[in-house]
């Protein structure tokens, strides 16, 4: 959707576009700025850009009346709102139909977004995100995770990518306490790695005021993915039995927040939660030294063949840092 802003705002935008701005100040694409129509600088605004659409279409030629009631000039500094534009591109006030005020309001409302000028645009950029995490749902086995997310952003909100995570797991004091206090040996697995192909979508974005002194921009992403994971059993009789591993399919749902600093266009700090679901093979109950146990299950391959399959899941809280390539981006809109 194309809209027109004219008047002093246009002058500001021309000035900003004409001078090399510092890195943190987003630039305005010249291709979207029309030449002045008399005293009125007219700027085409494509407010679909944040939705990840293509670059703005060719600007309307000077004098052509744009669609959707944008044929009314405005002055964001106030005081000139009553000024009727002159020249070829001007619209005669007297010819406005009865709905002109309504159209004006509609046009102005269309120019206002909840969070104006999103801090970071990711469209057609690559994102590389190393991340560190910890599993939080299993009281008996704690995993520390080291992972890497790779995402290509098709639009500013939609991306596809790959994730690979290695996990370092060990039993918790709770696991040992139950063994010592209750005399029970728990059946538990540790996860070795997980890998998946993902689809990311950013439904939310906003600003945060920090002590009302600084503004931080953020986005929330929902990611779903499917892939593979490998687990390894923790033998109940660890001195007697070798563990066996199992590669299985699985999927995950991830909720992640990205926080953008005020100046760098190529980095964000991220915080997220990832839930993995996968069918897992557990050590057979009759793998043990008792007379009632089955000695043939001492062999890891036999134990794996006799293993019960159950649905496993782990929840990981992670902290990541994203690097974006190319390291800069350009706005094609003034807001």
């Amino acid at each position, binding site marked *: 959707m194309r809209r027109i802003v004219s008047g002093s705002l246009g*002058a500001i935008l021309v*000035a*900003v576009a004409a001078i090399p*701005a510092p890195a943190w100040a987003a630039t305005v694409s010249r291709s979207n700025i029309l030449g002045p129509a008399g005293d009125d600088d007219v700027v085409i605004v494509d407010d679909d850009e944040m939705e990840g659409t293509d670059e703005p279409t060719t600007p309307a030629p000077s004098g052509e009346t744009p669609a959707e009631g944008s044929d009314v000039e405005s002055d964001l500094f106030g005081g*000139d709102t009553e000024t009727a534009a002159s020249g070829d591109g001007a619209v005669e006030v007297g010819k406005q139909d009865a709905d002109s005020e309504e159209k004006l309001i509609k046009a102005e409302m269309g120019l206002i977004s909840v969070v104006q000028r999103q801090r970071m645009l990711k469209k057609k950029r690559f994102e590389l995100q190393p991340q560190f995490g910890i599993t939080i*749902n299993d009281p008996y086995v704690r995993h520390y995770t080291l992972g890497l997310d790779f995402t290509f952003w098709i639009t500013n909100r939609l991306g596809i990518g790959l994730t690979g995570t290695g996990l370092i797991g060990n039993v918790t004091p709770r696991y040992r306490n139950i063994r*010592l206090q209750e005399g029970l040996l728990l059946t538990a697995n540790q996860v070795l790695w997980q890998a998946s192909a993902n689809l990311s979508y950013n439904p939310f974005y906003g600003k945060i005021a920090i002590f*009302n002194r600084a503004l931080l921009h953020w986005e929330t992403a929902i990611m779903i993915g499917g892939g593979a994971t490998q687990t390894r059993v923790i033998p109940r009789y660890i001195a007697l039995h070798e563990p066996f591993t199992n590669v299985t399919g699985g999927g995950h749902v991830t909720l992640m927040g990205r926080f953008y600093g005020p100046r760098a266009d190529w980095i964000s700090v991220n915080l997220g939660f990832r839930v993995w679901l996968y069918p897992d093979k557990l050590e057979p109950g009759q793998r043990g030294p008792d007379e009632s146990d089955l000695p043939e299950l001492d062999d890891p391959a036999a134990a794996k063949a006799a293993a019960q399959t159950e649905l496993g899941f782990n929840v990981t809280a992670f902290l990541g840092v994203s690097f974006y390539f190319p390291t800069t981006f350009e706005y094609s809109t003034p807001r």
Partner: protein
Amino acid sequence: MKTRTILSFLAIFEALAWSRPAAARADSPLQGEPAVRKKLQLRKYRVQVTPFVGMSLSQPFVHMGYLGGKVTFHFADWIGVRGTFGYGLIALESQLLRAINGGGLPEGIPPGETDPMSQIQCPPGGPPCRASEDEQNPAPLLHDSQAGLVRAQWQSSFDVVFTPFAGKLGIFSAIFTEYDFYIFGGLGLVNYAKQYPDTLSTQQQRQVDPVTGDCVIQGTGERDDECILHPVSADTGVKVGGSFGIGMNLMLTDWVAINLEVQDIVVGVNLAGLNSTVDDIPPRVDNGDRDAFHNVTFQLGAQFYFPPKAKRSK
């Protein structure tokens, strides 16, 4: 026309100012100014009352459902104090506890009945006896395990609340609302109560020699090995520890918000009430069997603000 010309020049000067090196920007007229003027101060000098429901996370034996409330007062928009209390109304056995009760631990020979293997009668009027087939089993009998087990019956905390982040949230560019994130920390209290209050341990049903600590079978004077080898002491009462966590308020109006919070109260406790060390001879339950336990809860509440109308900053 004149106004436009002046504004255009101002805009050019402004753009030139931003193009200067970073060091030269230090004298910006915006330096030291608030990020948002006329900001709605949703917390300053307001009391917040928050009824909530909560659920425990990562409890090994008994999952709890809580009903409680929080009262918070903010001295400034970013800092305040609060008190919380949650009482456990729902107690659900975990998968592990169900396994323990469902045959994971030996139940022993009921009093007055005869061990089918050894043909020895378990003395009537006392606790269950260990069966001959379980002589080598290091696990306690089920009734001893149950006698020592405790659950987090209620919890309370007194915290300092720190709200550094607040802003507006846009959802699909259509819905927007105010929100804030906060962290908190302070003093936490957890009261532990027995999960099975009517179950007595072997030790409780035997006479314990106050000098030697040996358990004897009433009437015979014989020592009871079960009583000696499996001491039980339910770790009930109020434990004091640290409270911390993170939360979020999503404003529905100026005076009510949805409150989401994760709170962790860390206290030293022995949940099973059994001995967990191997250097006590004979075994005994003492402070060394406690460990730091994280009572993590997720809470969902409705936060009401008083007075209902918030003021704006300058």
